[in-house]
């Protein structure tokens, strides 16, 4: 239809351009100092800017620190576990680390010294441990420098903070997984990406070369968009399981208002509308039991829940940049080297689009975030997606086959391509992964474009099947250990 053929064209919500800032040169907050920065038309002085950002940070975080979200009046902060901070070395997470340190580590020490009373209960640390986790992508993307030691150095600037470096290939490493969940949880699936049902089966013996598995996985993906979103998802889930491993009740991410708006639109562009809520804030529960798990211990069970919070969700990219500048923070990461061309990839296109739009219509990012915060998922949850570990909507496979007819009646049985040999070998254990995936992950694995992505690695050989991340198989086919069997039949066993 022509542009005005759409009845929803109405300009009552038309964006209008406004002058860069309102008339006064003085800070809107203290009204005394001369302004140093303009934030969405309002002028602030440096001092007031710092307290504004710190206020926004606490407002987005503190009501969610206690297990039961607080009412308006703040009670004492008593998180159920430690704090894990996902650190990419980019602007957002660098500022986040600075704010966390300033609010919960440095300040506390100052207070202790001032009041002298070390035993005073008010001065208990909010977080027993603050752990910074960095996931190194250099082995996944060509031409990137390994920055683990640089990041370690940057993190070491802050006392009272632990550092956990990971490599993205850990997502394919049975040893890494075994450390967290024990021997019983270790199994691996191989998947055939040639068909939309995604036939998959157990890998036997285990693939013990994580780097090779990672590269084969990324090389098998059909689009550049898929490569980028797979890397985001691998990083995210690595952080979640690290949170579980470190007994963290909270995982903080340095997503700014601007990057949140970008990731919301990026998610919508990839069919992840059902997970808008998780993109803003997420409650994640590991459903893999750690080896020392005691099913009678309620407290232990609660501890495995992780709340993912983005405390900079109200702070724009520009504000982050000013914070980093005035605090003289070093941005170690922030580097697009090796990532697929942003013009070929939904995430990159979305970023360029939003950043461009924000120049002309400065309220765009906050409008996007505000709008998305008013949405909730529609329809039933069929379970947790085995790949991204977010709630999956029921009926997506039926939806897809209704909306895009990919077979005609006569072609279904007669001409369906036979399963490739390696997957036929042990048909008993073959599953259709498609039914365990959310819409967006299924799209990541199956949706093609006219041009396949350029090869990431010179050496990568395209195989008909590829190993999946270590968290997939245990959720589909779990080996049931002796202890668990015993627990199930416990009451029927007669004590010897």
């Amino acid at each position, binding site marked *: *239809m*022509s*542009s*005005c*053929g*759409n*009845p*929803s*064209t109405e*300009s*009552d*919500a*038309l*964006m209008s351009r406004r002058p860069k800032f309102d008339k006064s040169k003085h800070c809107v907050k203290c009204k005394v100092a001369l302004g140093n920065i303009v934030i969405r038309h309002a002028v602030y002085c440096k001092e007031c800017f710092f307290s504004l950002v710190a206020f926004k940070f606490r407002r987005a975080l503190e009501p969610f620190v206690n297990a039961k979200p607080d009412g308006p009046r703040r009670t004492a902060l008593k998180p159920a576990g430690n704090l894990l901070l996902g650190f990419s070395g980019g602007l957002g997470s660098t500022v986040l680390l600075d704010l966390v340190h300033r609010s919960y580590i440095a300040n506390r020490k100052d207070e202790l010294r001032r009041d002298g009373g070390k035993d005073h209960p008010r001065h208990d640390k909010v977080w027993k441990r603050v752990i910074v986790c960095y996931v190194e992508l250099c082995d996944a993307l060509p031409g990137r420098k390994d920055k683990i030691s640089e990041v370690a150095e940057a993190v070491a600037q802050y006392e009272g903070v632990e550092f956990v470096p990971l490599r993205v290939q850990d997502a394919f490493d049975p040893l890494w997984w075994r450390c967290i969940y024990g021997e019983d949880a270790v199994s691996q699936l191989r998947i055939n990406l040639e068909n939309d049902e995604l036939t998959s089966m157990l890998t036997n013996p285990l693939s013990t070369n994580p780097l090779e598995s990672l590269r084969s996985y990324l090389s098998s993906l059909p*689009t*550049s*968009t898929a490569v980028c979103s797979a890397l985001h998802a691998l990083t995210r889930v690595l952080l979640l399981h690290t949170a579980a491993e470190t007994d963290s009740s909270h995982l903080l991410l340095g997503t700014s208002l601007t990057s949140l708006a970008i990731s*919301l*639109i990026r*998610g*919508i*562009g*990839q*069919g*992840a*509308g*059902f997970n*808008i809520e998780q993109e803003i804030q997420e409650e994640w529960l590991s459903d893999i039991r750690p080896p020392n798990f005691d099913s009678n211990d309620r407290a232990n069970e609660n501890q495995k829940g992780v709340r993912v919070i983005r405390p900079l969700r109200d702070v724009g990219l520009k504000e982050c940049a000013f914070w980093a500048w005035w605090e003289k923070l070093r941005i170690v990461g922030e580097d697009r080297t090796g990532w697929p061309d942003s*013009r*070929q990839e*939904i995430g990159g*296109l*979305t970023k360029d*689009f939003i950043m461009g*739009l924000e120049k002309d219509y400065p309220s*765009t990012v906050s409008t996007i975030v*505000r*709008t998305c915060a*008013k*949405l*909730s*998922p*529609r*329809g039933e949850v069929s379970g947790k997606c085995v790949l991204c570990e977010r709630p999956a*909507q029921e009926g*997506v496979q039926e939806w897809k086959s*209704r*909306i*895009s*007819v*990919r077979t*005609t009646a*006569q*072609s279904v049985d007669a001409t369906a391509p036979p399963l490739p040999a390696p997957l036929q070998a042990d048909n008993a254990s073959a599953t259709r992964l498609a039914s365990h995936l959310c*819409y967006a992950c299924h*799209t990541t694995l199956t*949706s*093609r*474009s*006219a041009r396949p992505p350029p090869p990431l690695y010179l050496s990568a050989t395209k195989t008909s099947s590829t190993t999946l991340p270590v968290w997939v198989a245990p959720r589909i086919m779990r080996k049931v250990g002796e202890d668990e069997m015993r627990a199930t039949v416990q009451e029927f066993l007669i004590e010897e």
Partner: protein
Amino acid sequence: MPPKTCALCSSARAILKRPKTGQQICKDCFFYVFETEVHNTITEAQLFKPGDRVAIGASGGKDSTVLAHVMKTLNDRYNYGLELLLLSIDEGITGYRDDSLETVKRNQEQYDMSLKILSYDELYGWTMDAIVAQIGKKNNCTFCGVFRRQALDRGAAILNVDHIVTGHNADDIAETVLMNIMRGDIARLGRCTSICTQGEDTIKRSKPFKYAYEKEIVMYAYFKKLDYFSTECIYSPDAYRGHARAFLKDLEAARPSAIIDIIHSGEAFEIKEVVKATQKIQQTCKRCGYMSSNELCKACTLLEGLERGMANAGVTDRARKKMDAEGPAPENLRIIPFFQQPAAPHRTDISIADTST
């Protein structure tokens, strides 16, 4: 390279690559999947009942020309039992609508459907040419959109139909999802992906091409040799929508499923109950009886602004207040005829309705 065989029937030679799935298929299989997907859309949403009188909003452009053909084909093939009619709106844009109305008239003969043409001039006393002459090219899409929507409903009432189908395609809907998020239009966001909308007292309106790609609609017209006119409006569209459209095209190029993926996203969320409670409730316009979220409907507000020489009154709140401050509307103001619901016999049971407006 040897000729590729069709990925669907494996017998005929593939002559096209489906924009939606990338599959290489033959012409007959393309017709089959295209029509079947529209049929799936219609049956899944239970849009019609046998005996329904259905008006096709026909502009002579590609979407509605193909829609008329597909509706006729499916109605015959699957015995929907529908009585199909054509309804055209003449906006009064010189050199823009004249040719495309010829297409509609030809469809009327080809498909043996009755046709009603309703003009803005007849209904509002203003042609789009006259409106643009007064207000310039800025914001004219606001007028056109509001006036067309109401004109379709009124035309449908005159024809006494149960249902209007329009040619909105998947690209339009995906674009609207993005627009509504970026503009924060939460009420529209909540309903823009529903296949069928029906307010308290308006006629059912649905979009059978909701999942049909614009490129495939053109492809269908091309292979079926259906001719149509470009209905790209000669007056400039709004810039913000233009950005959203260009962005969507980029996403589609990166990954063709993006259009359908965005629509899926839009269907996978809804407005939180607490937010819904704060939305304006729907009422009827005190002047013309059409549904409205204010005392006066959008069309009446726009028309009053035009008549009183304050055209922006319907566009911005500030201009609206300014007009109100200049006193009430004069007695002799030209107004839209009062809206009367058609007394349709089938309108009592509603198979699918989204009344969350």
